[in-house]
């Protein structure tokens, strides 16, 4: 004879005769604890159907993985590549526009043609060979950008005489008392001095064509950096 637990399982699995089924259903109505056991076993079986090792959820997970990791991924990679290409184009276009815009403000970049620029620089070096200050030239070694105090103008830059020369230094220096001196070989003992106001980080100076040197310093304390550039008429 089956005990009650087996009877419930037999009922769930539809193994009871019609008479047994009728009797069992009458008992269900009369005894809530029997109904509760039935509900628990039905939910347990459903839990197995859904979350068991061969259940629906693991199979849906496998289906999702298969679709998302193989053909779809290719698609999404393509989309990603397309997206990356668009972003790259936008960046290039942005840089180009920025360069064009800067050309108006930063005279050191007014030549687009690098070959022409190199040729002109070579001509200026030759032309102003005798105007070099040898003792100063020896100190003008390339400076790592991280150690640069003065950001513009870079060494040996060609600058347009029709626009002011832009000096720009690191903003974290702007609280110090600073000075820029500009001079040629002939004026090295009487340089133009530009005391820099606090909070400033730029200086613009109009200069005629020539080879110029500059000295950036904390007056009477320390020379921070020196440099050299050419002003030319294009």
């Amino acid at each position: 004879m089956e005990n009650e637990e087996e009877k419930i399982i037999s009922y769930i699995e539809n193994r009871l005769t019609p008479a047994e089924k009728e009797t069992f259903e009458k008992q269900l109505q009369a005894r809530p604890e029997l109904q509760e056991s039935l509900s628990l076993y039905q939910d347990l079986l459903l839990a197995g159907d859904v979350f068991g090792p061969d259940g629906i959820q693991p199979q849906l997970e496998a289906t999702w993985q298969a679709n998302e990791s193989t053909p779809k991924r290719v698609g999404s990679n393509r989309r990603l590549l397309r997206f990356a290409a668009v972003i790259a184009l936008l960046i290039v276009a942005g840089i180009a526009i920025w360069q064009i815009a800067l050309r108006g403000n930063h005279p050191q970049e007014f030549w687009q043609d690098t070959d022409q620029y190199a040729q002109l620089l070579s001509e200026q070096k030759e032309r102003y060979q005798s105007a070099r200050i040898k003792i100063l030239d020896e100190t003008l070694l390339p400076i790592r950008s991280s150690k640069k105090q003065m950001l513009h103008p870079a060494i040996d830059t060609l600058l347009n005489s029709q626009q002011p020369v832009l000096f720009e230094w690191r903003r974290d220096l702007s609280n110090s008392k600073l000075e820029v001196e500009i001079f040629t070989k002939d004026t090295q003992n009487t340089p133009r001095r530009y005391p820099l106001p606090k909070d400033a980080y730029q200086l613009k100076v109009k200069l005629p064509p020539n080879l110029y040197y500059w000295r950036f310093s904390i007056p009477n304390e320390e020379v921070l950096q020196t440099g050299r550039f050419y002003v030319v008429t294009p």
Partner: protein
Amino acid sequence: MMDDFQFVKQLKAKDQVAWQEAYRRYYAKTESYLRTIKYPIEKLKDDAKDIWQETVIVLYIYLGKGNEPNDLGAYVFGIMRNLCLKKLKEKGREVPIEEDYTPAEDNTYERVRLTHEIATDILGTMKKQKGLKHCAEIIRLFFLERKKDREIAAQIGLKEDYIKVRRSQKCLPYFKTKFQKHYKYQDLKN
């Protein structure tokens, strides 16, 4: 492309083709709906997967109870939409005003999920319990892995009759008592 009748039939039978069809029919729509309600993008993919899975399971449970939706697409969209909005709310986000979020009437999925969680927890402790030899295995294989008694008997290396007697006289009474005393049992009743 499978028609609704075929799809429902395959789903009820838990046929492998039904899962692929369910993916094709509903997964992209779930992602798309989440985007519509401005779901947090960093979680969108993972949560879309969970919502899609739950939607299909809720549909399976609904069909398993003998229900037949008049409009399958509308019924599934309703489930999916509700789950998306519920999840958005859980994230502390405001549900769009135009979206009328109504909690699901049928909580079978939640009840079954919690039942599975409690059962797994109890079976873990039963393994180490003296006097309950084979019980955890018998219950797990029968309910959670849906094995027949002869399969369980073969797997454990015992007679089928022993499995039946052991399950009904020793294992299930103990399991049921522990289940009702589990700290999450009240969540199940609420």
